């Protein structure tokens, strides 16, 4: 085994024990440097103070009743020194922190703008011309400015690898920007095929945790919601993929631009179910989550909070997608965001077709 291999092995082994996640944006370097500098400064102060503390505790231990060796009540020079010297370090931290912050705040001219919508509990990134997707796809070494809004409560977009975070407050737009510096690798086709097959066989939605790459075969950085937003806050995660070339990014976007010819609506509906945040709240196996399960939903009479009973037909499903707060099923909260303006007619049609496949009545009407 070559020496470099041995090192990379050590590197692999040590990685989960590192201080920081991978460094992947232009901010991370400054940030890690500042963090380390503050930490070392703290250690330089902390160690002598603690040595003195414990040394004095042992050294000046005396039997009961012994008098203290000294009873000085103050020492102006000493007190001034220990007030002023640390202050210089504090000013240093403040100034460097504020300057780096201003850099993080002001997006450079001409940065690509991407619209982000946060909702309970998921993300929708708008790639223009009707392409929406929960994953954030970026271009290597290109500054990008996110323009973010929330449909319900406060969320916060956090990408640890970029050392960047910003709250998303409903009722206003918040902005953030960054420049990714590390591209996401693509896994081999065999690996991707195996994972896709496995997911299909199990009938589950894609597990990023298990596979550690996206359904399109890209490795990714984690993106978290950092502001507590209710029940599934900890599941409000998505991923960031950094493409090396614009062609690659565009190819990826194109793939999601609409229902590709030759793909039947039900299959496309399944994709939408995974991509547009439905999976976060509606299960396929009958288990109750934040919203009712899709298993057997189509054609079933549902009881509303108002007490009336409505059959889940095409129109009911369409209304629930566009105006979710109008007819709420008994036992659930009106928390679903509206998809009005976000899903095309064909999209909704595809979802309905997909739901039909999940229900025996639906299959029967086919």
């Amino acid at each position: 085994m070559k020496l470099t291999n041995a090192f990379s092995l050590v590197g692999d082994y040590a990685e989960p024990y590192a201080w920081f996640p991978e460094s992947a944006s232009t901010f991370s370097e400054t940030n890690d440097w500042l963090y380390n500098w503050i930490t070392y400064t703290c250690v330089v102060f902390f160690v002598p103070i603690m040595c003195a503390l414990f040394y004095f505790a042992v050294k000046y231990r005396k039997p009961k009743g012994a008098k203290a060796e000294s009873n000085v009540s103050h020492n102006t020079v000493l007190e001034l020194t220990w007030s002023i010297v640390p202050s210089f370090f504090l000013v240093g931290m403040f100034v460097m922190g504020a300057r780096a912050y201003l850099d993080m705040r002001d997006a450079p001219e001409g940065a690509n703008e991407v619209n982000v919508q946060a909702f309970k509990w998921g993300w929708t990134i708008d790639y223009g011309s009707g392409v929406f997707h929960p994953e954030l796809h970026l271009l290597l070494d290109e500054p990008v400015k996110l323009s973010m809004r929330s449909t319900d409560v406060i969320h916060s977009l956090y990408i640890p690898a970029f050392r960047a975070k910003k709250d998303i407050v409903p009722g206003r737009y918040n902005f953030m920007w960054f420049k990714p510096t590390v591209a996401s690798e693509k896994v081999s086709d065999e690996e991707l095929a195996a994972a896709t097959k496995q997911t299909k066989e199990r009938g589950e939605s894609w597990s990023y945790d298990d596979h550690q790459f996206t359904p399109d075969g890209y490795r990714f950085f984690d993106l978290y919601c950092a502001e507590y937003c209710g029940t599934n806050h900890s599941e409000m995660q998505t991923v960031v993929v950094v493409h090396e070339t614009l062609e690659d990014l565009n190819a990826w976007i194109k793939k999601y631009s609409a229902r590709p010819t030759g793909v039947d609506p039900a299959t496309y509906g399944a994709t939408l179910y995974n991509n547009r945040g439905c999976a976060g709240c509606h299960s396929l196996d009958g288990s109750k989550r934040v919203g009712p399960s899709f298993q057997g939903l189509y054609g079933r009479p549902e009881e509303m909070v108002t007490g009336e009973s409505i059959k889940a037909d095409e129109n009911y499903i369409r209304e629930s997608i566009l105006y979710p707060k109008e007819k709420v099923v008994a036992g659930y909260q009106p928390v679903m965001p509206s998809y009005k303006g976000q899903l095309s007619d064909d999209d909704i049609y595809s979802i309905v077709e997909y739901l039909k496949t999940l229900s025996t009545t639906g299959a029967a009407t086919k």
Partner: protein
Amino acid sequence: MSAGSIPKGSVVRDPGYPTASENYLTNSKGVLSWIFTLDHKRIGVMYLVGVTCAFAFAGLLALLIRLHLFQPDGMIFKGAEANNYYNQLFTLHGAVMVFLFIIPSIPAALGNFLVPVMLGAKDVAFPRLNLCSFYLWCAGAMFFIGALFSTGLDTGWTFYTPYSTTTDTSVIAATMGAFILGFSSIFTGLNFIVTINTMRPPGMTWFRMPLFLWATYSTSIIQVLATPVLGITLLLLIAERTMHIGIFDPEFNGDPVTYQHFFWFYSHPAVYIMILPAFGVISDLISVHSHKRIFGYRFIAYSSIAIALLGFLVWGHHMFTAGMSPMTTIIFSALTFTVSVPSAIKVFNWIATMYKGSISLTTPMCFAIAFIFLFTIGGLTGLHLGTLATDMHLHDTYFVVAHFHYVMVGGTLIAFLGGVFHWWPKMFGKLYSEFGGRLSAAIIFVGFNLTFLPQFVLGSRGMPRRYATYDPEFAYLHQMSTIGALLLGVGLLVALVVLLTSLVKGKKAPANPWGGATLEWHCTSPPPFYNFEHAPVVGDPYDFSNVEWDGANERYVSTEPERKIAPSEIPDAVPAHAKDGH
């Protein structure tokens, strides 16, 4: 082992032991004599029992939280409601710890007992108000527990809007609880301010007050000034929820960030309500157990006031990522750094006090040393959060969780425990097992660090807080933390057992078991109903020169030079030389 001896030619002042009829615990009997008591000492003891129960309850919730986080997918709660249970758990843990435990712990439990005694007064200025504030505390606690047993509460202890105005859990019950607790806190503060201003006996000048009183005084100022803001904010929150008046909720043209400003305008100063009394306790503990004058008395006294006032200016540092204007953000960051100077200097002062002292490593001293260690870590890691750029990465991650636990648990809780061990013999007239006490301090210290040190790393690696489940790569750090929490729990249990067994089996405590010079050591243990048999002689609270160890009786006593006493019979009216002349 004893070095001291009573110098020849001096008289010993020691009040001895109280009789049953004069001691405040036994001079009247029956449940009613406690329920309707106006004695500040009994009210202090009732608070002590109350806050301890609240702490035990919230501590058990903390253990459940930690156990759940032992595995990435959650170990305790399973199924559809798992996340909801977890959210209710951390909300209730946080809210109970903050509102029912940490804020009242030192001021209400120890403060009520000690302020009048240390001051040399008979009681607080408004004894009825004092009792009332205890019952308000109980009422507030009922609301919190009520929230738990109705629909739970899942907003986090900060009640951020618009989540809190839209969730269907018991927000109103809980905010009413916090509102009532606010009154309890205001009444206590008001009482102390008036007591300290008006009831000092002759000779008790401001600069002869023990530092614990300075700390309580500055805390009271914050309580009285800041708590009403919280009250108003919570009322607005309730109005918003029920009537949609549109202050905080964007759906009705409100702004959620306004709520954050209001909330932190109280809650940041509240952090100093939590930590300033701890500074006071530690100053007294370090000085008494080092038997040495506190270093820089005036500075510590003034810096308490300075921290209390500066504490009102830094609330914005909780909102660096919320999207305030860059200028506001930078100003808040700068102000934040100014508060760290007086806090840092206190640490230097305490260590300078130990230098060339005569240190006894008693249980309270062990807690005081642990406090300095843990609080310093808590304070230093605050610098990472005050620095704007690094806070962008660390805000709302476990780094913050670790930071505030180092300050509030490592700081306030440890100071509270140190204070309880320090004044326990005074309060109950019993000595506890020194070995047991020190053992508990050691276990708590190790357990605490094992719990919260890994959380700094979790945070800098990017683990967000308030997560019921997490990515597997964080698992081993979470597991370390959980094991630490169990150990911490054991340590706390040991402390409780040591204290409780002392009540049954402990030796009788002398008036001054540690050699303190403040007034509370001049009355019997436990104190008599009116605190002092005779009006106390007020001296320098940190002058240990006449405190001597009386080895034969195992106690510290105060001595004073023997004065030539005037003969008891009046001498002859006729001068001697005149007699001779006859």
